[in-house]
């Protein structure tokens, strides 16, 4: 197990190095180079020249790269040209918001997807199954932003059940020790604040969770159908195991293996889906900040956030693999 973790961490190093080289070259390959990117389209040649000297953009590429990498390793990801604050600070400030949203979206996806898939498999060919198939088809085909717009229009604008934007009612005064608003409210016993933060999460989480929900439901269905006809299930039944034990300990346990991998893969998708969802709901997480950065050509933020997201993604995947090993002992041997 430890070896698995160490090997994966070791593998992470070349991956991130490769990504950093790509991001480094990307900004250098922009028309006008990094100085122009920093100063904007209307910068004078003198200003570009000054920036080139100031930041060493006129030195050889490998030298620049090593300098840049050295800064990254010290946590210096540069300064956002849009807000004038360090990129790392901006990331850390918004990270809890996106984690909170992704977790709730994942809860929606798992909490609805697995039961739906299981019920569909148990009642294969019947109406529950048809519903599940339609839901999972819609889930993967309807674009996230479209669903987000639709949910917002119907439940926020027309019905007024949920807020249309933000993380918290602007009129609410609350303290945030951790940055996870729902949790903060519970910790500080500001129940209203906690509830309000949760209500703000519902629509974005449903939108964001729609694709993973559909995929999880489909995989669960297929996996359960597969497992329930397996030899060992028949053996268990023949040996007189109680039917609910067969379903729970044998079928479900074994069927969960591919599902847990799928869930792990979905986490990465959640981070990319967050860019669209957070933008539609003006939800102040890393996704919205990234989309703002794209529109304002804030390259330091784009570079920094993409690298940081890659690190988070790799860590999450590592965690998934570890949990995978815990579920299936065979994985540990490998």
């Amino acid at each position, binding site marked *: 197990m430890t070896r698995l973790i160490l090997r994966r961490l070791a593998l992470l190093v070349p991956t991130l190095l490769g990504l950093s080289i790509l991001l480094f070259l990307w900004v250098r390959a922009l028309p006008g180079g990094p100085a122009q990117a*920093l*100063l*904007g*389209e*209307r*910068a004078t040649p003198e*200003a570009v020249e*000054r*920036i080139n000297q*100031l930041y060493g953009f006129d030195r050889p590429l490998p030298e620049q790269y090593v300098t840049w990498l050295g800064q990254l390793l010290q946590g210096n990801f540069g*300064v956002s*040209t*849009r*807000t*004038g*604050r360090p990129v790392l600070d*901006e990331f850390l*400030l*918004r990270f809890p918001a996106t984690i909170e949203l992704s977790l709730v979206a994942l809860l929606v996806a798992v*909490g*609805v997807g697995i*039961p739906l898939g*299981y*019920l569909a498999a148990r009642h294969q060919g019947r109406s529950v199954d048809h519903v599940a198939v339609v839901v999972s088809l819609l889930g993967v085909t309807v674009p996230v932003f479209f669903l987000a717009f639709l949910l*917002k*229009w119907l*439940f*926020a*604008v027309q*019905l*007024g*059940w*949920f*807020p*249309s*934007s*933000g*993380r918290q*009612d*602007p*009129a609410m*005064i609350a303290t945030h020790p951790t940055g996870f608003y729902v949790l903060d409210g519970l910790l500080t016993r500001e129940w209203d604040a906690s*509830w309000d933060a949760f*209500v703000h999460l*519902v629509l974005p989480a449903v939108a964001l969770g729609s694709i993973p929900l559909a995929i999880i439901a489909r995989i669960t269905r297929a996996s359960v159908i597969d497992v329930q006809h397996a030899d060992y299930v028949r053996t268990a039944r023949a040996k007189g195991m109680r*039917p*609910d*034990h067969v*379903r*729970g300990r044998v079928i*479900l346990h074994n069927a969960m293996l591919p599902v847990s991998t799928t869930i792990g893969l979905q986490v990465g998708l959640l981070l990319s889906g967050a860019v669209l969802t957070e933008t*539609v709901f*003006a939800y*102040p997480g890393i996704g*919205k*900040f990234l989309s*703002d950065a794209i529109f304002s050509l804030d390259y330091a933020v784009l570079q920094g956030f993409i690298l940081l997201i890659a690190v988070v993604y790799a860590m999450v995947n590592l965690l998934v693999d570890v949990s995978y090993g815990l579920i299936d002992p065979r994985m540990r041997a490998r």
Partner: protein
Amino acid sequence: MRTRWQTVAGGVAVGLVLTGCAASDRDAEEGASASGGRDTFIFAASSDPASLDPAFASDGESFRIARQIFEGLVGVEPGTADPAPLLAESWEVSEDGLEYTFALKEGVTFHDGTDFDAEAVCFNFDRWNGFTGVLQSESLSYYWQKVNGGFAESDVETLDGTGKYESCEAADPSTAVVTLQSPLPELISALSLPAFSMQSPTALEEYDADGVTGEGDAPVLPEYATGHPTGTGPFVFESWSPGEEVVLSANEDYWGEQGQVRRIVFPIIADATARRQALQAGDIDGYDLVGPADVVALADEGYEIVNRDPFNILYLGMNQANPDLADLRVRQAIAHAINKEALVAQTLPEGTEVATNFVPPVVAGWNEDVTTYEYDPDKARELLAEAGKSDLTLDFNYPTNVSRPYMPTPEQVFTAITADLEAVGITVNPVPDPWNPEYLDKIQGGEDHGLHLLGWTGDYNDTYNFIGVFFGGPSNEWGFENEDLFAAINDARYVADIDEQTAAYEEANAAILDFLPGVPLAHPVPSLAFAPYVQGYPASPVQDEVYNVITFTD
């Protein structure tokens, strides 16, 4: 096992129902708080402020916030663009227009407890004039540079010691005397800009207000400008979460009327549709820059629509670097070809006025008797024939994906004008460009453009702030050299006597309309929308809107 799944499914169902109930609770609570004394005003901003230190800002969103926290020596008469006393109760200008004596309001303190007095006034003036290095870039001290013309010292030759400001003296705690090197009659009007707000000298020093690092185009702001703005206004800065919201709270020690609003929240919602939906969903109490298409719909749904008196101009530019457009007869033909009444009725918000001058009528210097160009397609054809340009083809540049207060729907304006031009035999070659960054670059940065749509919203009540910006000197936008016209405008700027100055500006306006570098089209009305319970929003043509006068009803 089935029961366990059923429990889960049931749980999900219960969760959804609960959430539904919660949503209705939420509505009920809001209703209750409305009748039980609403005191937070939530107004959607379209972007983060550029800086909380208004001396380093020139954008509307920064000024909107600055106006709640800060006050200047001079304000405006509510609902107009005319200067009125604020922190200065009165002022006297010497005969030669060089000495301004301000009698200051007494008993006013800054939010940090520092006294507002003549010393503080001089501290602010000396600070602006003493900006050095990166602080002198246009992205920071734009307005001091534009109004004053320079700094005490500068590495840039054109800014070095070229300012009008000479010195400031505290004659006594409530009398500040500002001395100029040469007359600047627009000074009083200009002082109503938030950029010239009075700030606490103590806080400016304590939080290193002038410690801007980085480059002019990508400045890194100091602590003061990101978290400690300290003024004398009715609201005190509380917090700024970039990309999320800015929060202000009531100033308990405000010298004036504090009013009903105890807290202001500016959630930042960039997209206009999202702002409208946030209002409809009850998340916000109001927002600015309502699209013309949304105005009628929102009004029908019972929302309060507030219109500002237009303080702007939308015009059709005619670049004389293009030889065809250098012919006055062609420019006159184009002016006669455009049906401005129809254009305004079809493409601009209700209440919009047709323009005859390049300044709005409320600005001193607006001239009733300028040459006007009536809609007359026949005359347009005649003029074109006379110029030998009956089969003229022109490039027509217009911006896409943008909505400006003076031009909510550029594509529609373009289409309407094109139809008029084609009707008199001019072939239009459409050249659409995205507003940012291509459009302005192309129009102002180079010669390669023909007809174009652009406009301007005034900063304060002053003619030069309009026509000086457009025609004060040669530019790529207009492509002409006309020394007489440039001189008429620039000479008028420094006439110390206001009445004489107004007359000089009226003449300049008449000269512009005779020379016809472009066609003034309209003064579109900017609209704001509010929830029905918001009363008394102090709409102002120059957006001098302070929220302590807002009240809430049930």
